[in-house]
């Protein structure tokens, strides 16, 4: 591999990883606020991609507007998912709520497949020139700065954090846990949809695209223990780079087919280290 190739692959890996990070942050934010692992997270990514395509190609909106509205629409879906499926099940255990998100995921996928078909949609044009990877990295950086400002400079961000640290204490200062849960679903949907929107010039939008991207985001979040936003971003980027390198090293005839196995490998490693650490803690106590 020439140095140029290496750099190209590194960039594409970081970009791909940025998308995983965005998706993963959705998992992390919902988990810390509600203790729910939201298996519909991948569908927000898919909605971001599919809506972008529809608004741009079918409706004919200018690309930036199409992307923005697509993300907004997916955010509304996230909010509605919370209001219709999670909030009414108030007494349900966390496990039941997780199962509800699995059901919701299947439902959203089915509806999109029914309405807009099961074929691959043509990818969107690159945002400019031939450097979509850089666009993805740039947009992700902007989103992360915005997210950081949100959590550190607004009352809502701090309230979300407070809710994830100690829900009871949060309620005693006046924070409504349910409105925080609502916010976390909307925010997670927005992040996932941004990931889906920026990747559509490179991956054809498709009603099942949320499955793989959701899984990769899940792995990124697992690296952050579903708690750490920084850990999630690091996890996503590492996964993206690892995948890009496997494709390029081209071991054997099926090398690129192994790409998706990397995520599983990372997940197994995370689980392995976590359980051995857990065992060590148990032994210590």
């Amino acid at each position, binding site marked *: 591999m020439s140095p140029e190739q290496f750099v190209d692959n590194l960039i594409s890996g970081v970009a791909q990883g940025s998308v995983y990070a965005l998706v993963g942050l959705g998992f992390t934010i919902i988990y810390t606020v509600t203790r729910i692992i939201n298996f519909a997270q991948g569908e927000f990514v898919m909605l971001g991609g599919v809506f972008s395509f529809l608004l741009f190609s079918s409706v004919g909106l200018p690309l930036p507007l199409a992307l923005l509205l697509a993300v907004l629409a997916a955010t509304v879906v996230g909010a509605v998912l919370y209001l219709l499926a999670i909030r009414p099940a108030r007494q349900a255990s966390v496990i039941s709520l997780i199962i509800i998100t699995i059901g919701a995921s299947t439902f959203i996928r089915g509806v999109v497949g029914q309405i807009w078909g099961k074929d691959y949609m043509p990818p969107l044009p690159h945002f400019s020139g031939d450097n979509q990877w850089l666009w993805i990295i740039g947009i992700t950086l902007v989103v992360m700065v915005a997210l950081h400002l949100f959590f550190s*400079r*607004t*009352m*809502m961000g*701090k*309230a979300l*954090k*407070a809710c994830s*640290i*100690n829900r*009871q*204490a*949060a*309620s*005693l*200062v*006046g*924070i*409504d*846990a349910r*409105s925080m849960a609502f916010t976390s679903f909307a925010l997670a949907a927005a992040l996932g949809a941004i990931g889906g929107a920026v990747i559509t010039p490179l991956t054809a939008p498709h009603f099942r695209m949320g499955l793989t991207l959701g899984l990769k985001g899940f792995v990124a979040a697992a690296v952050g223990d579903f708690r750490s936003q920084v850990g999630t971003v690091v996890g996503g980027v590492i996964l993206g780079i690892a995948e890009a390198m496997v494709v390029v090293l081209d071991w054997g005839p099926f090398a690129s087919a192994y790409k998706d196995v990397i995520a599983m490998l990372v997940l197994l490693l995370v689980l392995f280290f976590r359980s051995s650490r857990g065992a060590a803690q148990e032994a210590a106590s």
Partner: protein
Amino acid sequence: MLRVEKATAAYGRVTVLREVSLTVNDGEIVTLIGANGAGKTTLLNSIVGVVPIKSGSIWLDDRQISGLQPHRTVGLGISYIPEGRQIFGSMSVMDNLTLGAYSQCSRNHLSTLGYIGWFLRRPDVRSNLDMVFNLFPVLRERQRQQAGSLSGGEQQMLAIARALMSSPRMLLLDEPSLGLAPNLVKDILRLLARLRDEGFTILLIEQDAAAALKIADRGYVMERGRIVIEGSSRELLGNDEVVQAYLGKTRG
């Protein structure tokens, strides 16, 4: 100001409060005395809505507050400092204080999206912050420090300061001196007396009943979920039963 009328509460099938009635008047310190497991904490939890009551009613002035959820009662002027302080340990002291004022800006959900610096410059928030920094200068020095890294006494001060940030009229405190050195316990009680003199109304649970009765105006004694004795502090300090059961030994 606060009136609890025949409140009954239970955890599952176990009844913990049995027709408890209690009143706290404006500008009073009222203390709640009772053995471990008597139901004191549960009573405070019921007042703010953490544990809903099964029957009876709870009134704040002329408004019935039983049935409200905890995040609503703060907005009405009752601030609860629960057992064990419950500060946000991994956030800074300043963030804890800021969150204490959450109920001051949350009436409109969207306004919580504003830049927090502007909110902190609001005159009412500013003056609350000045007040707690004057009460607890150490918190001003440590405002950037992680709350969890404060000493136990400082954490208790932060818990009280955070509660004061919501502009409450009434404070409910559950064993604020738990685990503190004796001279700190005195400081905290002296502080509560001072807050009362500044117009706050206080309902206090305190293991050291003798010390609590010294600053309190009135007291209630709870036994197995019932109020068994009530009276002015002087009456309780002179009541043989109370002296024998609760004033003999002191802890804290």
